[in-house]
């Protein structure tokens, strides 16, 4: 599944692929050496799919999200190898101008720090309507301010904002974190992009706003066929909304599979740890099963499998050679436990 051709005579599978990332390797270069943040990452997203990228700090999930949108700052980031193909075009070969045509209208991102998405010196209403004006320009339709305003209000209401009119008249700093996040999400989905990347969309939101948001995203996916990539550290949340999940660790994909399968029958010991780390019992429940140690330090990665210092199923080979991502059942897993070559 490499380059996607726009030629419809090609296989059905290929024509459905909206985005594919092939063998992407990204380094961050700084004065004290370089750090490999993404190591040979490949993924494919079909049109209409909701894909989750799950991992903890330092797994490279945010870098991957930014790279897809062409938003990585270079330097410090350097893309060593790989390609990012969106609708048949390799985004890494496009000029900034051509990218700007695609960003916003075709693909859009909701950043983790929603503050960064909003301009501090303009009122929220102005910024939201500006996004609306931009689509009209893009689609070459007449821009109707009253209609736009009504649609913006409706969208904000759907996102659990109780007094949308008042919010439009506020500056970003006057809003709470959760409110800002919702405004940023509204801004990203106003344009009905084909691909929406959401980086930690629910952190800092109350449970009821979270579930409201998930519902809205699901609707967006079903009604307008918006393809989504959801980047999160919360595996149960991801399985709630995603069709398929990639689990990342230390810049590598460790497991891929159907969302429900990943939660119920995780293959990789790291995925198992992520599942068992979520508290479920009551006060008298036994201590949570967690691997010792912290998320990896990319400057000092171990030899062999990058998870081996924390792995409960560690074998000799794990310290010597890094496993490949291999097919297991209908999913992929990078672990010697499932690799036939391990003899």
């Amino acid at each position, binding site marked *: 599944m490499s380059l996607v051709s726009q030629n419809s005579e090609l296989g059905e599978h290929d024509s459905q692929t909206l985005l594919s990332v092939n063998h992407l390797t990204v380094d961050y270069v700084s004065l004290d050496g370089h750090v490999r943040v993404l190591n040979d990452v490949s993924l494919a997203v079909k049109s209409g799919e909701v894909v989750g990228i799950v991992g*903890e*700090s330092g797994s490279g999930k945010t870098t991957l999200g930014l790279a897809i949108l062409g938003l990585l700052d270079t330097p410090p980031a350097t893309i060593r190898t790989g390609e990012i193909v969106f609708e048949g075009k390799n985004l890494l070969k496009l000029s900034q101008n051509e990218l700007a045509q695609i960003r916003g209208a075709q693909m859009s991102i909701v950043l983790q720090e929603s503050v960064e998405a909003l301009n501090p010196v303009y009122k929220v209403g102005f910024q939201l309507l500006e996004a609306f004006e931009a689509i009209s320009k893009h689609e070459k339709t007449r821009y109707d301010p009253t209609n736009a305003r009504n649609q913006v209000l409706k969208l904000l209401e759907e996102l*659990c904002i*109780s007094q949308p009119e008042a919010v439009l008249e506020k500056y970003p700093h006057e809003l*709470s974190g*959760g409110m800002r996040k919702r405004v940023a999400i509204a801004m990203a989905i106003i344009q009905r992009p084909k691909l929406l990347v959401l980086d930690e969309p629910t952190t800092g939101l*109350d*449970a*009821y*706003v*979270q*579930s*409201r948001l*998930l*519902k809205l995203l*699901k609707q967006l996916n079903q009604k307008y066929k918006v393809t989504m990539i959801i980047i999160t*550290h*919360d*595996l*149960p*949340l991801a399985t*709630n*909304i995603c069709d398929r999940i990639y689990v990342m660790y230390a810049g590598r994909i460790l497991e891929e599979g159907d969302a429900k399968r990943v939660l119920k029958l995780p293959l990789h010991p790291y995925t198992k*740890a*992520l599942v068992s*780390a*979520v*508290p*479920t*019992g*009551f*006060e008298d*429940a036994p*201590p*949570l*099963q*967690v*691997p*010792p140690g*912290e*998320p990896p330090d990319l400057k000092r990665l171990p030899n062999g499998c990058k998870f081996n210092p924390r792995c409960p199923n560690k074998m000799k080979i794990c310290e010597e050679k890094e496993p490949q991502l291999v097919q297991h059942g209908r999913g992929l897993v990078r672990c010697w436990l499932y690799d036939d070559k391990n003899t």
Partner: protein
Amino acid sequence: MTTKILEVNDLRVHFRLGGFWGKRAVIRAVDGISFFVNEGETLGVAGETGSGKSTIAKVLVGLYKPTSGTVKLMGEVINFRDGNSVAKLRENVGIVFQDPTSSLNPRLKVREIIREALVAAGVERSLHEERIRHIVPLVGLRPSVLDAYPRQLSGGEKQRVSLARALVVPKKLLILDEPTSSLDVSVQAQVLNTLKELKKELKLSYLFISHDLNVLKYMSTRILVLFYGKMVEIGSARKIVTEPKHPYTQELVSNLLDSPQPLSERLVMEHQPSFTGCVYSRICPFVMEECRTTHPPFYKVSDDQFVACHLFKKFPKAFDF
């Protein structure tokens, strides 16, 4: 007979806004809250943004003065206008905040950060090093972090430093204000495990504030549910999670991620408090006429569950929970 470490009675914290030219407004951040914390238990506080969770925490360490109501620490009423009385509160009650980065001084080494708590408590200088050496392994830190600056630590380690600072002077009650919500899942699990061990080891009681009901359920003996400054339900964690009575608690519980309800059928609605009658009456699906006019008293549904809702009128009124 269990002893009550902390008793809070009819606590109110109101903030005045505006005045002068603007319209005067009073924000009732905490309005008529009563609860107690038994020795050795964890009282969980559930509620969303604006429910007053953090305001309660700040009152209990003397950062805010209550507008009215009493706070009793080990049977002794705290006078918030008297510095000595507040000092006593701070001596016995520790706090760990949500954001470990902003609560640690970036220019001090970890050793100095922890030492500050000892200086503030007036502990003799010669004892400092020994006390620090004692607490650091208890909170799960390597002694080598003592010479590091906060920026050199990971999120989990920073939160453990906050814990060490709060506990280096022995405390009776520790307030944990969203202690793990900025941490990774696996690190959160490690910190929760440490908290449970510490509680046994140091004979602590916790007031555990969180918006994550999964975490609260796992940590708490009893849970208190807040909605816009008012208490709506209090009871044992098991009862609150398995048989929630108040419509708001039911909504919270239906949001639990491992709940069997599929996503689309979950109860979700817009949250706005009502200023007359029951605070939840504006959005309550079971609203009745009297809900709009009178705020419900607490009814005792069972020995370990109390709810402020007119639906449960047939149960006896309760004053002590």
